[in-house]
């Protein structure tokens, strides 16, 4: 049973939805820029193509680590999404699954760091060290923001948070709104989108950790990112909007919420230039942490 959950929901459903999300992102980007944008199946075709390409292993790289890094990241995302799906539709999770998810969400970043250092390319290791700094920067406000629903629901289980929202979603409270703002900006950094695409800055360090990857390795990384692009908004919907509801009119609401979050992320990414790593660190440790802390305090007071 666990295996079916892992393969069907954790991997297949998330991958498909993630690729669709990435299509939405590319299409919205294109529309903002007066372009037509790619056809609907484009992300799938890209993936198939990359899987069929040759893998070139750079001479300076440590072979084993270089090849296993993308798998590590993908595994992390699969486990996270399985927990979310299972909690949402099938069974109660285990105590403290919220904490486990937070930890597992760091694994994709970790895999990028490992990949960067294993590539043996100066640009890749520069990208890896930037990723490291960025992780340190956004983790604190991210966790504080996600703590708000835990406090409001008075439960550290995902199912508990979902249950507490049957009467009213957390996004309706002041603390919820503040936390969502912080969380979305942190998601932006987690996904490495402009303005926080510092580790992968294409025009500075040539996609950073991914510079040496080709073929299937790159495909898995791209897939990982796309799945993350689905999982993170999904997680936010569970925490702040009462989860996915598939009955009647609520289905429409769910889709609207989801597309709304994706669209906000895309619009932020298209209306800002990239910031410097020191500016990003200052931004997350300064105003973002402050707002998140205020949200936590408000939540403790039941607002």
């Amino acid at each position: 049973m666990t295996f079916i959950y892992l393969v069907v929901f954790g991997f297949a459903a998330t991958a498909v939805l993630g690729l669709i999300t990435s299509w939405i992102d590319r299409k919205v980007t294109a529309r903002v820029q007066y372009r037509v944008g790619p056809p609907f199946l484009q992300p799938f075709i890209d993936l198939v193509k990359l899987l069929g390409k040759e893998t070139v292993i750079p001479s300076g790289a440590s072979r084993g680590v270089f090849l296993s890094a993308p798998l590590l990241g993908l595994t992390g995302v699969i486990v996270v999404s399985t927990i979310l799906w299972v909690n949402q539709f099938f069974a109660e999770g285990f105590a403290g699954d919220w904490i486990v998810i937070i930890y597992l969400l760091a694994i994709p970043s970790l895999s990028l760091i490992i990949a960067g250092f294993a590539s043996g390319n100066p640009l890749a290791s520069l990208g890896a060290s930037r990723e490291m700094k960025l992780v340190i920067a956004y983790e604190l406000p991210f966790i504080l923001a996600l703590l708000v629903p835990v406090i409001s629901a008075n439960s550290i289980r995902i199912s508990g948070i979902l249950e507490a929202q049957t009467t009213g979603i957390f996004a309706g409270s002041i603390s919820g709104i503040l936390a969502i703002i912080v969380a979305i900006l942190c998601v932006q950094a987690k996904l490495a989108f402009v303005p926080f695409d510092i580790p992968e800055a294409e025009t500075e360090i040539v996609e950073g950790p991914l510079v040496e990857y080709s073929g299937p390795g790159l495909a898995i990384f791209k897939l990982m990112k796309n799945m993350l692009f689905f999982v993170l908004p999904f997680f936010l919907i569970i925490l702040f909007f009462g989860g996915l509801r598939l009955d009647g009119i609520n289905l429409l609401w769910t889709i609207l919420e989801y597309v709304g979050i994706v669209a906000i992320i895309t619009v932020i990414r298209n209306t800002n230039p990239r910031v410097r790593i020191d500016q990003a660190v200052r931004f997350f440790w300064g105003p973002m942490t402050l707002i998140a802390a205020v949200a936590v305090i408000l939540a403790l007071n039941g607002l």
Partner: protein
Amino acid sequence: MSLKLKALLKSPWVFHLSTGSCNNCDIETLDCLTPRFDIERFGMLLVGSIKHADVLLVSGSCNRMSVERLKVLWDQVPKPCLVVAIGTCTGSRGLFIDSYNCPVPLDKIIPVDVYIPGCPPKPEAIIAGAVKLIQKVGGTL
């Protein structure tokens, strides 16, 4: 046609290489990305790393220094990879055929699949060239 090839033709990621050009071909290539032409419609993307590329767009008249780099890059690119020669310079070296710094033509260095002549070719011509390339590899031309 295998699925692999089909996917490749529907999502050619291009890497752009200038081997000593006057910039016009490069600018017109970039122009293909912009709103009026928008080659992302056909799944084409401009990538920054040679490792991600499926198509090499080469422009310029191959001078002594860039030729050395070109050979290195050609070894690095993951196969299958197609080569498009943009502009008159890559085809026949045009004005620069007798230059002391442009000793060999492009097709003696790496295999070229499609030539797009013009000085510079218009973006429409570049897109037409890309379509020809797809037809040629796909076997419908």
